[in-house]
């Protein structure tokens, strides 16, 4: 089959042969196979730990951004009640951008969670297969002649080998994805470091380069809508005018 399945089968089968071909006799196949299986389980554990680390990092960023969203929203209201539409708009632009980042982070966190679950389930399955392989090995040794045993063991080894090869592929794929997310997380961190989500009270007056970029990035319509909504809300209790909160409780 030259198609999707054929290509996939070829990749996995070539990995199995490479794993199994090193051994000359059935006994060696078993020893080598077992050694490989133990290594594989260690790798899977490490792979799962990597996914968890990546997930935690994204979760931390996500909760930081959530705080910024709340803060920027508050500041926009305060600015508006003081008649500082320019500041309110700036805060809302930042809030919009932070919200967009949040959505993307959250979907990545979900993806990593799925990956973690799948790898954990696969690890369990591989353990069971290794155990079955060991049991089978003893039965084969007791019941069959050397020549017959070789064939039987080879079958069993291919069974467990395929599981290992496939898990190896799944881990590599998980690693690639985690790597992509790591890059993405760094990009968000850079935005943070550049002050993209900082509260507006920490900025000097006047429009800086960042603001110009933000204006291009965030949807003007969305900001306008939100501004109008806030005005309507504030319009009812418009008497008081709290001072613009200073950004000292910088989270």
């Amino acid at each position, binding site marked *: 089959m030259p198609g*999707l399945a054929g290509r996939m089968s070829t990749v996995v089968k070539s990995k199995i042969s490479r794993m199994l071909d090193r051994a000359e006799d059935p006994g060696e196949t078993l020893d080598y196979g077992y050694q490989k299986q133990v290594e594989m389980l260690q790798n899977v554990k490490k792979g799962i730990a990597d996914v968890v680390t990546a997930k935690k990092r994204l979760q931390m960023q996500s909760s930081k951004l959530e705080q910024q969203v709340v803060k920027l929203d508050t500041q926009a209201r305060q600015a508006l009640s003081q008649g500082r539409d320019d500041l309110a708009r700036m805060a809302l632009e930042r809030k919009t951008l932070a919200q967009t980042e949040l959505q993307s982070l959250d979907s990545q966190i979900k993806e990593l969670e799925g990956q973690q679950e799948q790898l954990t389930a696969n690890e369990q399955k591989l353990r069971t*297969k290794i155990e079955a392989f060991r049991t089978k090995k003893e039965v084969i040794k007791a019941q069959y002649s050397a020549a017959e045993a070789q064939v039987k063991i080879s079958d*069993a080894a291919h*069974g467990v080998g*395929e599981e290992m090869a496939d898990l190896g*592929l799944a881990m590599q794929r998980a690693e690639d994805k985690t790597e992509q997310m790591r890059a993405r997380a760094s990009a968000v961190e850079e935005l943070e470091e550049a002050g993209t989500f900082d509260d507006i009270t920490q900025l000097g007056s006047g429009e800086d380069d960042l603001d110009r970029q933000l204006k291009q990035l965030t949807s003007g319509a969305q900001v306008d809508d939100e501004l109008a909504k806030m005005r309507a809300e504030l319009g009812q209790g418009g008497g008081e005018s709290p001072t613009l909160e200073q950004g000292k409780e910088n989270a």
Partner: protein
Amino acid sequence: MIVRISGEGQFRLPDEDAARLNELDNRAVAAVEQGDEHGFMELWAQMLDLVARDGNRLADDELEESDVILPPRDVSFEEAQGEFTGEGLIPD
């Protein structure tokens, strides 16, 4: 026949399904070659449906080699394209 969905596990299917699976697979390849993402995704879903409908999951302690290995369920169109340009779903 035994079919593995990569990253997921093995399923035992009636041998008659081989021809149908092969046909879907060939059409999926054609869709990829034409850059038809929608068509590919549709055919891929049909392949997964076939396995889900006719297949019985192998017990974890069964040691069988698969006759056919399918890519991971969430294979992307880009990954499928990679498979045919020779780069492979997962490089060696």
